[in-house]
């Protein structure tokens, strides 16, 4: 069974190109050119007969924000209310503020146009995994190169030898591991690690990310795993099993 993707994009050329690229990768693609069409497809599309499938009619939504009949953010809100669908936002005009707002509103990730097909596919893979399409238990293990994290055992090791993290450092790393491959906004990190009253204290993050990198990266000045998304948040790269 191939995965179904709804592509909401008003530009005909880009819609066609992306559709073909996705179909080459084995996805089944539904396309919509407007907000209304997108909503209608979500509401009425049915799975091919004979497939016993519960839940939403598609597995992932790729959503353009600047649509002729409204802002894609409306569709995002509707989707979030009804389904636990992964949503990837693509837009030509994303400011930092908007990126953060979208992520906090439940978008799984964003891509600023222009982007390459490779980038899109990578983000889709991460988003699909996090929404449990591949029915995996909630993440407790993370392995990426020499770095191994076991959340349930509170154990972190680098090149096989144990790494000692302070409780705050561990909480921060654990939060990133749970969203490995995805951007986690400053706000989300601060709220989950330090508490909701600390969401403005970005400088805590800078300090603890610095400490984490010093312990976990070969060259903290040029991190390979704990990546910065300037103005938005942090992203721990996908684990090796992904």
């Amino acid at each position, binding site marked *: 069974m191939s995965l179904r993707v709804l592509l909401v994009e008003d530009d005909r050329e880009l819609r066609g190109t992306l559709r073909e690229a996705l179909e080459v990768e084995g996805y089944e693609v539904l396309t919509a050119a407007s907000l209304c069409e997108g909503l209608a497809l979500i509401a009425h599309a049915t799975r091919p007969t004979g497939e016993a499938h519960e839940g939403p009619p598609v597995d992932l939504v790729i959503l353009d924000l600047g649509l002729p009949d409204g802002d894609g953010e409306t569709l995002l809100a509707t989707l979030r209310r009804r389904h636990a669908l992964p949503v990837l936002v693509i837009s030509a005009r994303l*400011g*930092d*503020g908007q990126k953060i707002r979208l992520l906090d509103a439940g978008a799984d990730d964003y891509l600023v146009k*222009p982007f*390459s097909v490779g980038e899109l596919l990578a983000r889709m893979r991460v988003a699909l995994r996090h929404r449990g399409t591949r029915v995996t238990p909630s993440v407790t293990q993370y392995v990426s190169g020499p770095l191994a994290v076991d959340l349930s055992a509170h154990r972190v090791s680098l090149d096989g030898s144990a790494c000692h993290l302070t409780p*705050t450092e561990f909480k921060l790393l654990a939060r990133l591991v749970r969203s490995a491959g995805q951007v986690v906004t*400053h706000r989300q990190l601060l709220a989950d690690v*330090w*508490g909701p009253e600390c969401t403005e*204290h*970005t*400088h*805590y993050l*800078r*300090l*603890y*990310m*610095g400490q984490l*990198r010093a312990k976990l990266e070969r060259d*903290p*000045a*040029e*991190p390979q795993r704990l*990546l*910065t998304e*300037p*103005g938005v948040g942090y992203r721990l790269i996908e684990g090796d099993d992904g």
Partner: protein
Amino acid sequence: MASPLATDTRPTTLRAIVVPVGVWLSAFGAMSALDGRLDLSNLAMVLVLASALASLWWPPWASLPSSALAVLAFNWLYVPPRGTLHVELGQHAVLLAAMLLVNWIIGGLMLRLRTRAEQARRHLHDAEQLQTLGEALRDATDPVAHAGTLHAALAELVEGPVALLVLQQEVPETNDPHATVCIGETDDDAMAGLWHCLRQGRAMGPGTTRHDELDAWYLPLRGRKAAFGAAVLHLPHPGRDDPALRAHAQALCDQMGLALQRRQAADAERQTRDQAHLHAVRNAMLAAISHDYRTPLATILGAASSLHDQDERLSDAQRRKLAGTIVDETRQLARLTDNTLQLARLDAPGVALSMDWESAEEIVGTVLRRTRRRLAAAAEANGTAAPPLDPSHRLRARLEPDLPLLHCDALLLTQMLDNLVDNALKYAPAETPVEILVRRERDQVLLAVRDRGPGVPPAWRDRVFEVFQRGAERQPDPQQRAGAGVGLAVCRAIARAHGGELRLRPRGHGGCAFECRLPVESPPPMEPPR
């Protein structure tokens, strides 16, 4: 004795009576003392002398009657038969008549002289007043600031309440008090009169033939074509005109009007000049930007049309290489677009940056990662031709430990460093290293991108930051790609938006360093985390 011709007007009111009366009394004293020793005609000379002296002080109305009275008294006292006003015909009548006539002539002459002197004094004062105001206004960039001076001058002139209404810009549609500066006390009627006078550009009040019944003069502050304000002067003697005073007051007002007109003209000229400059800059910028766009577009079109038209005749390797070129050049276009948009955004007045506490390590780390990925993609696209020095080893970062947090817009600083690194990699020879250096310098943080390239000629060191300048245009080497135009301009704009500066410094053993210095602010306190 001070010359009575130059005395001020007020003290003379008393002196004008006391002094001539004294003169007359002493003259009659002298005559009674000399009576008997001199004959009548010589006594008469004393009288003529006294009359001439007294007319120096007498107010105009008193001069002629007083000398007539003196002649009568002389007749009574000394002309025989004494004690009567009877005059012997012949000699004495002629003497008295001649005396009276001479007294009157002298009195009249003195009066004219004094009037002339008074006029001259007033003219001098008026001229001085005009000159003082003129000088104050000539050097003033904002004549409205000198409205107080004009107000004081007018108030001194009419010795009565004065109010001024001065336009700050264009004449408003309605009588909007915010468009004007008002000096002095006015009631609603006076304000309506001022606005009327301003709009009509003509004087009103006694003697002006317009609204003669008013008890005040309404004078426009006239420029060459229109009025730029108005003044109301409440007269000390309501209803009475004084043309000379009015003319002078109008001259003072007109000086202000002309100054306001000059300012308006200067403003208009500056605006036109600014606009022309803006237009020229915009055109140059558009020309430079479209030039910058054309190069990658040409490459993309070439590669894409080759793929499209020569499809089956191309080898797989050739096809892959062409596709790689398209990807590469498209990224270049995307960067160019980002830079152009950012430049336009930063140029706008009141741009709001999203400032936060950021770590320099993270910003540099992001730049390194992006550049390495770009270099790897480019190397892949170009196929097997590996550069002499692995691209990822060309770029190094040196960061001082324990750098302070920067209060900045991370996205912008990343863009700045990314542009500078891209620029250095592009313009410096392929095997030379490029270094990002971050260190603290007292109350500043230095972010530098340094290369060992050909450097920049001294004449170009400041001009490379201008949008429409491109070092490569002067370099005949066709390998040198243009495109630094918008990139460096946006870098400088970013540095300046952060209260810092970006400079180009030549390095000791060749190459150049782009150095951005940003102020260090004290970060918020670190509370003990839970």
